[in-house]
């Protein structure tokens, strides 16, 4: 196991009102570590020097909770396709590399500290209508409505979103269209979700606008950077639903 000597250029920012700056650090890692374990090593080093550790968000460390973020060398979640930061391993870097690490940048995701941002705008988009209105106990038998396997799989593919916000960070307009359209598609594909579909689209899009996310930039950077590879087809279908609704008379 050979050591890797790395130079890190890390964004440090003490709260939303601080201007922020890059700090340079040196760290010794090895190829078996995950990217976050490399940062753990850095933080242990900083704590032992009684300096301020680098704050970053993380939890499950297996690519499913959506907590980890970071822009690594200019790309949300780093260089690998379909991979969250926590699943990125150091064997994809080499001895002597300089790695630049920044937070997910978007007006709607204010920086809390260093690499930690506030993504609660996503919660509010879901609260605006990203659900099926069924109280506990109201359900009929689960097999009462057969759902074609392919339809269920399409719903699943959209539902795989982990709410990390990489799509927003990747977009030149910081648009939340991929996130919002994925939820609309997940629920809209299923017969249970069709009842409230039109209202859901209107309410979620309105909330998305209110949060200050930008318009879709049509660059598809969101799909390219999405760790769950959510398709931009969902955006096209949301647009159809949304525009269709504008011209529909009640």
């Amino acid at each position: 196991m050979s050591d890797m000597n790395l130079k890190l250029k890390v964004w440090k920012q003490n709260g939303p009102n601080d201007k922020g700056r890059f700090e340079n650090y040196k760290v010794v890692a090895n190829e078996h570590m995950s990217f976050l374990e490399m940062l753990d090593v850095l933080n242990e080093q900083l704590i032992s020097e009684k300096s301020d550790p680098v704050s970053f968000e993380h939890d499950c460390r297996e690519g499913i909770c959506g907590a980890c973020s970071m822009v690594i060398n200019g790309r949300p979640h780093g260089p690998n396709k379909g991979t969250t930061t926590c699943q990125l391993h150091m064997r994809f870097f080499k001895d002597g590399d300089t790695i630049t690490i920044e937070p997910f940048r978007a007006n709607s995701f204010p920086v809390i500290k260093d690499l930690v941002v506030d993504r609660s705008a996503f919660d509010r988009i879901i609260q605006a209508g990203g659900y099926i209105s069924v109280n506990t106990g109201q359900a009929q038998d689960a097999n009462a409505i057969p759902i074609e396997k392919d339809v269920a799989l399409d719903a699943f593919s959209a539902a795989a979103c982990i709410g990390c916000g990489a799509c927003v960070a990747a977009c030149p307009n910081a648009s939340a269209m991929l996130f919002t359209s994925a939820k609309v598609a997940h629920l809209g594909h299923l017969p249970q979700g069709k009842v409230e579909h039109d209202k859901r689209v209107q309410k979620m899009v309105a909330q998305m606008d209110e949060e200050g996310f930008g318009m879709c930039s049509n660059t598809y950077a969101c799909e390219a950077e999405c760790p769950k590879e959510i398709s931009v087809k969902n955006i096209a279908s949301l647009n159809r639903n949304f525009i269709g609704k504008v011209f529909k008379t009640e």
Partner: protein
Amino acid sequence: MTVENNFTETETLVKEGTGLKNNVPEAGDLENKWTQYRSTMDLVAPNNKRRIDIIVVGTGLAGASAAATLGELGYNVKCFTFHDSPRRAHSIAAQGGINAAKNYQNDGDSVYRLFYDTIKGGDYRSREANVHRLAEVSRNIIDQAVAQGVPLAREYGGLLANRSFGGVQVSRTFYAKGQTGQQLLIGAYQALSRQISVGNVEMYNRHEMLDLVKVDGKARGIITRNLLTGKIDRHAAHCVVLATGGYGNVYYLSTNAMGSNVTAAWRSVKRGALMANPCYTQIHPTCIPVSGDYQSKLTLMSESLRNDGRVWVPKKKEDVMAIREGRKNGNDIPEEDRDYYLERRYPAFGNLVPRDVASRAAKTACDEGYGVNSTGLAVFLDFAAAVIRYGKSEAISKGINNPTDQQIGDLGRAVVAAKYGNLFEMYEKITGEDPYFQPMKIFPAVHYTMGGMWVDYNLETNVPGLFALGEANFSDHGANRLGASALMQGLADGYFVIPYTIGQFLSKEIRTPKIANDSPEFMAAEKETREKLEKLMNIKGNHSVESFHKRLGLIMWEYCGMSRNAEGLKKGRQMIRELREEFWRDVYVPGSLDEYNPELEKAGRVADFLELGENMMVDALDREESCGGHFREEHQSAEGEAQRNDKDYTYVSAWEWDDNEPILHKEQLEFKNVELKTRSYK
């Protein structure tokens, strides 16, 4: 903090307390107890619900489903999570599935069979009435999830698909690829979001519960720290519901998320709640092995893989050495030189034995020197046979006559990919090896804790008005949990049990006015919380929180891990006490109290683990038998199987914490509907 350094005689310090009343209703047979109870229990009328406040802590499957359902019923709910969003709770990482006694496969399943499998799987150390209720409501959970839009796997006919999990002989597990927990949690999160949007639930993200407040003996609120600003707040309510998950991170390395902790539960224990069966921990047999001392967590490979994967080690030591040194890999070992030890030792269940049995068998193989990686701590999980079986079947269904090996392999791998694709990708990302072509290397890791807060049939702790749900309680899994039963229990508790049983307490509280949050009890608890935080900040020692946590984890794994003995447990207990003393003398927490400070959060959690760990050692030492996940080396058969002692240990150990003398309260378990047998999967 008082710690005695010259402490040796552990067992003399265990004081026995009083027996516990589990409040299982007398009326009705096992089959209709719950229905009868539900139909006759006290209710809170809608006009009164509006005046009652409930605090729910935690937003995993149990917490989110409880908060959403209580909100739907009309209560005023305040819900708390330390995460930035309720959707991040660790339930999200559950992979394989959720059990339900639907019998959609017509393979002989029933409520009774699920009940029986769970009792047997738990090695006859759980409460019959609770487990039967769990099996009953399991069916409603699937209905509810589908109605919410949870995209569970389906067959071509459009109906729901099932698979098998360990310890059972029917297919009752519903799933959504390897992301079942994620999909069910998002379902509950959406239901919760809906209640937030209509104002029935007030959501507090990034708030950590640091104390429980009791007024006149009843749980009436909590003290929280706002993790962004450091502000300490007092929150009052008529009752408090904890759904704060398990304590597997006491071992440092586990499959739990980094933030999972015992703090809310443990601080409640320090206010008088009881910790039940803390030594019952589940070591999951199929996880990616440890690769170095920088490692921060372990990754699970779902139990569903054992439907198709075969577990083995080489028969010959020279093959083992060749593999360790990289001269051979698994594929080079001919069939006759492989020991499929689970199939050999347990022919009836084969690779699908329960988790505790599979983990111990892997440990035995590695202890005997057959481990297949450089550390000697790994066994193979091999899909080659499944690839061929599926490949041949696909070739037939596609009308390919005389398929080549390549065609069979390609077709078979496609089937395996459809079933387990995301797990295989996850394995490849971490290890850099491709499991479609090489057998996986796996090893057991801490995964789940069956122990937890003691609760009665109503899920109420011994502190009136304090309830515990999901992994945070001890109630349903005995000494070993079966696969795909954690999601079932979390959602059963949250959607279908607590909404009813909480009424038993609250129906007596309808005349209680709004609870004031500035009573002397609240002010004192706030002050104590602040002082504890200040104490941590002011130690200004030399070692990081992480370094103490790692050392604690090593002690726990060594002396209270997959197998335990009296000598080790005594030693481990002493080591923890010394480590705790060192922590409070020499830990270094950077930053300040009144800001975003993840190191301070961690310090409080590790301080609690340093007490819980000792409680686990004491509990494991008291239980002079082997059962489920608790394996005492002194109590095993000639073949190395666990030996229970039903005569002396058919009880729940519920511990009252005290720095010097934990007090044991017992709940005797009565089995009226199943016969206690030696568990056999042979």
